């Protein structure tokens, strides 16, 4: 493996790690991954309208505080 391809590989790993860190950061405040949602809607319900990110965010915000488990002591 030459230096260039090693560098691209490293860059790809770092980008992936960052993506996951951001995903975790969003999920711990109750916002799941938007791309996953869009992909799911396209695949499973192509006939339904897909929410914009803003609408998706607002919907998740309401859902987080709707009741249910809450959080720990």
């Amino acid at each position, binding site marked *: 493996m030459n230096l260039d391809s090693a560098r691209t590989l490293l860059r790809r790993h770092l980008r992936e790690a960052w993506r996951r860190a951001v995903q975790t950061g969003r999920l711990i405040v109750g*916002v799941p991954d938007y791309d996953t949602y869009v992909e799911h809607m396209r695949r499973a319900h192509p006939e339904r309208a897909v929410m914009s990110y803003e609408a*998706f965010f607002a919907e998740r*915000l309401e859902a*987080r*505080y709707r009741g249910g*488990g*809450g*959080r*720990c*002591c």
Partner: protein
Amino acid sequence: MGSVVSKFGWAAFAIFGAFCLGTVALHRGETINATWLVAASIATFVIGYRFYSRFIAERVLQLDTTRATPAHLRNDGLDYVPTDKWVLYGHHFAAIAGAGPLVGPVLAAQMGYLPGTLWILVGVVFAGAVQDFMILGLSIRRDGKSLGDMVRMEMGSAAGVVAMIGVLTIMMIILAVLALVVVKALTHSPWGTFTVAMTIPIALLMGSYLRWVRPGKVLEVSLIGFVLLMLSVWIGGKVAVDPSWAPLFDYDGKSLAWMLIAYGFCASVLPVWFLLAPRDYLSTFLKIGTILLLAAAIFLAAPMLQMPAITRFIDGSGPVFAGNLFPFLFITIACGAVSGWHSLISSGTTPKMLANEREARMIGYGGMLMEAFVAIMALVAAGILQPGVYFAMNSPAAAIGGTVQEAAATISQWGFVVTPDMLMQTAHDIGETTILHRAGGAPTLAVGMAQLLHGILPGEGMMAFWYHYAILFEALFILTTVDAGTRVGRFMIQELAGLAYPPLKKTESWSANLIATVVCVAAWGYFLYQGVVDPFGGINTLWPLFGIANQMLAAIALTLCCVIVVKLKRERYLWVPAVPALWLVVCTLTAGWQKLFHDDAKISFLANARKFAAAIAEGKVLAPAKSLEEMQRIITNNYVDATLTALFMLLVAATAVFGVRTILAARRTAQPTAHEEPYVAMATVQS
């Protein structure tokens, strides 16, 4: 060949763990480095995870990698989403970790570091992590249903109502006791009060920014909020020494309690995007960041434990909480060893996002091990303080007197040498006027953290900055729990009241909402106010109630696990949930019984009420009360607390009876009777 190497490796690791634990347990006399304690804990966690959680996964729960999880079956891209296991681990840990594991171990340090450490390690491996893991494993086989729904389904609707009442009462006690921790930390502390007050405008700003300027940019706005927050900690230091500004943020406990009650009401009726959600972002990120910071500080500083392994207070005469090692240690440290509350998270959002059944082990069992590690760190932070300073901070005025001279004399008499100068110097170092009677864990942890961080990053006045940073971090996420808890409590009250009078159930009706919110705030507000005016310091009274309530919920969850194990015809593994369930039932009932009927007025609510009633009959005023009116209030509060204790005992007993009844019925049938969803192969739903 590989398996031989692996067996040798594990045996060597087990010996290393045993050696660390032996060093911690048998070391006497001189001080010991905290690294031993940390190493012993990590070894215990790794071995427990590798062997016991695997046993539970394979034999008891029989997790199946080919079976589709609710996240695949009901995938909607919102609640039900198959999620990467590390991402989900972060989510689950952030949801279960709160103030509990930081407060309990600090209070329990009065008996020395050893009893608390042993209970956290044994408790988490055999009880806490088992509960979290099993409830998660059972919930994914039931469409991600909640604890209450599972209890109703498997044990009948009466048991379901018992669980619902249990959850609601524990919620009220949690909110009251956590709010009390904040009050104790902020009383007559202009610096702390200013910083915490500033979180409100910061949150409003963040909320508006997210709504109108950059919708949905959570991480960006949290970063802005964090910078403003640090700025307010720094400005707080200036405010505290300014003669014209400081009095504006200098309050006694009663005023702070009323402010918190008013705040809790407002925060829970305002739209969530405005105040609650942005604070939630700040507090969640700050919490995770600070836990990492604390871990790094302990590893880097490798501090010595100043607290003895065992103190004389294991006999039950301690000033921080009254009562013998058994059962009260096991009540005081709830979160960290076993926390019933987690069963709500394990059957809440997490099971709906699990991508594969196999991952329940890492998330459920592994997540709880991490919380136990937080509890161990809190214990270390309390243990590195001079014991004299620790007792000065955590004892009520009734036990050590109101001045540094009295406190130093009393505590030195107990055998923990401390001078008035040391107490004043500590207060001065952290930028406060006094450190006396600040029970509740937060201030003690903050002083411990400040000393650790100051040891690594020294600098003029930095100790005071770190102290107030730590106070802010705890106050911020406790207040978020109070807001969110009041909202959740409101929904629970509406659901329960709806059973009796259906219109109250309508969550879109403003009047039903307001009534339920007022009831909810009044319930926890009552206990908060009672704690603030309590001459014994409040934490002394309320924390055991909280512990009993939390362990009661764990007993309910583990009983459900027992019932399902029997219904699945896996009786030979019944001991896995049954041993911890039985232990918790014994602990809660014994502690409850002593809280009611013990002869010692320091332990028993009823004995204390009788003592004050007898004094009133003779027309005498008993210290620390100052008037007959105060005496009367102490009596009333004691009766309220006694009633609540009796209610908790009744709920535990009722659940045990329902559990045994269902188990006996299940044994009479030859077929499995558990209500599992039918098997669907992963291959048929995955695309």
